[in-house]
């Protein structure tokens, strides 16, 4: 799976949405489904995908689809 697809899948699963409803406009501040529990699931999902814990600055960077793609790409 490519990085954007992986990120989209992770985000969709965490937010409980269909993958095709996730796009670049899906952010922490404008998506009603992106609540604290969804955020928790997303962080754990990213850590599982990377096989390591996120560091401090990585944790706060997770605010949109683009940032999830970037995080997965860095590894």
């Amino acid at each position, binding site marked *: 799976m490519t990085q954007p697809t992986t990120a989209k899948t992770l985000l969709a699963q965490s937010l409980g949405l269909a993958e095709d409803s996730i796009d670049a406009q899906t952010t922490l*501040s404008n998506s009603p489904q992106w609540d*604290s529990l969804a955020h928790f699931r997303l962080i754990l999902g990213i850590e599982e995908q990377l096989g390591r814990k996120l560091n401090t*600055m990585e*944790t*706060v960077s997770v605010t949109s689809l683009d940032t999830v793609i970037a995080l997965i790409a860095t590894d």
Partner: protein
Amino acid sequence: MVLGFKKKKPPDPYLTQVINTERFRLVNCNRLQAIQITMPWHNDPEILGNLMYSKAKYSRREWARKIGKPDGNKRFYHAIIAKDIKGTIGTHRLILDKSGTVRLAIVIHAKEWWGKDVFAEVRTAIMDHFSQSPRVVRFHGQVLTRNIRSIYNYQKLGFRVIGYDRKVWKSPITDEYEDTMHFEYLAEDWRADRTEHLT
């Protein structure tokens, strides 16, 4: 040399007002009330850990000392009272220092209210109220890096990350050192952003 007692400042009449939100009443507490409303979590290791206390549980006597002296001037404990059940579900604490920085903390001890947006509703109302005071310049929050839900809550409200501390707190449960993050929101920015949001 003349020795004298430091005169205690009286409660701030504006800052101690009751704050109403859609679902909650936020009532400023005196010392005894603060001890009472925080008693449900004085020996809850999970909550104490998230607030970076140095022990995993406290005796009642230790806890009373730990609460300090909420004076309605520099130290505030608000009971979060749910209007529908007329009961206290949590506590909001603020410490206002001389330079106008307010240090924030919140505990929702009634776990059935977790995930119901209590943080956003309470914190927004508190910041709306406190940001109107000329004594308040800046809001500040410190959160453990592993406390993902709190980090989310600060980010969702629009707080900026201003830095982090490495290995600043030693967990009394795991004996491991943990990192924390610092969040900030200037009162003037909050007022401007809220005005923009409401118009």
